[in-house]
């Protein structure tokens, strides 16, 4: 139990996917302009991450031992089809949620955080419970980063800043400061 908590905490804050590992930056830059979309994007990502963790565990257990060179290709195919299936299921079961998530759902396929999760999970030899915990932690980390960024961006919209820093330059500098803050968590646990 202690080990699982460690994995969760480590993925959520210490090795935050977005702010210290630079994963999922496209989504981070793209949909962090409103708190509501940021929250939805975080939730959708967490959901897909968790499913991916289960699928990758199954692949590692049953398929890849006999064909290790197919690792990357099978991961990407599984993630793409998983996102497709999730999209179809949500559309059928809850059209309202489907409309709310909109374009963000298919875009998750090319979110590097998902593939990175699959690779980290494999490299560290996580089992099913560890993998799912890791995915939940990573999802929580992404959501925290998105929410923080969105709240800051909402306030910068009305602030008076030089014209050239409107846009990406400012967002990157803010991310830098956030990342600096997250460095503070580095000493929280001795094992990362």
């Amino acid at each position, binding site marked *: 139990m202690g080990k699982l908590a460690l994995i969760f905490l480590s993925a959520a804050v210490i090795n935050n996917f977005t702010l210290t590992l*630079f994963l999922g930056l*496209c989504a981070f830059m793209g949909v962090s302009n409103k708190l509501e979309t940021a929250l939805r994007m975080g939730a959708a990502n967490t959901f897909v991450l968790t499913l991916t963790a289960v699928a990758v565990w199954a692949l590692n257990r049953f398929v890849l031992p006999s064909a290790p060179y197919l690792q*990357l290709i099978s991961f990407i195919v599984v993630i793409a089809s998983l996102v497709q299936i999730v999209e179809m299921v949500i559309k059928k079961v809850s059209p309202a949620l489907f409309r709310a998530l909109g374009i963000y759902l298919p875009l998750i396929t090319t979110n590097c955080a998902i593939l990175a999760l699959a690779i980290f999970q494999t490299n560290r030899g996580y089992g099913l419970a560890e993998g799912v915990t890791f995915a939940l932690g990573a999802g929580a980390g992404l959501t925290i980063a998105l929410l923080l960024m969105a709240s800051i961006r909402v306030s910068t919209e009305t602030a008076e800043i030089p014209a050239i820093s409107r846009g990406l330059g400012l967002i990157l500098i803010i991310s830098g400061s956030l990342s*600096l803050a997250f460095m503070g968590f580095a000493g929280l646990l001795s094992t990362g």
Partner: protein
Amino acid sequence: MSQNTATDDLIKGLWRENPVLVQVLGLCPTLAVTNSVANAIAMGVATFFVLVASSFLVSLVRKWVPDEVRISTYILIIATFVTVADMALAALVPDIHKALGAFIALIVVNCIILGRQEAFAGKNPVGRSVLDAVGMGIGFTGILLVMGAVREVLGVGSFLGHPLFGPRYEPWVIMILPPGGFLTLGIVMLMRAWFQERKKIQAAGLPAKAERKAA
């Protein structure tokens, strides 16, 4: 005319449509692996190879790929070349391969590559697609090199592992840590915006000056 198109295909990726600065694609590797010049070069070369090879193949088969499955086909082609690059790096430069870690595999989801297949190689003949990919690849590698150089020089005080400032230099460690990546790219973006703004002001100011002279 055809000469012009070919040159344009090649050079537009360098600055005018630079994949990182203008299209804002491929940010993850730009930030993650530019903590030293050597890593930046390895990443740039690997991405360049995957981009050019995928563009070539995608453009070659574009007439036989049905529209509905084109994205999956592109991804599979890209993933194949990334696997090749991954194995090649592991065999040739094992140290750098280790340092780059998962980010080699993550070239698959580098939006620059899929973006070029969808926007260019899937619609254009082989020659132009390869030129486009070469230009974009050089543009991407260039940014990686700039980032890698700034971060290694400030953060370690060396270039490609050669110390620059002597033993009394106190390295600015934060530059090779994650926040340094965000800050460096942020400053590069700000400089580009400043440059564009100044060009605009100059373009607007020039006719005014000419008029004053005439008067």
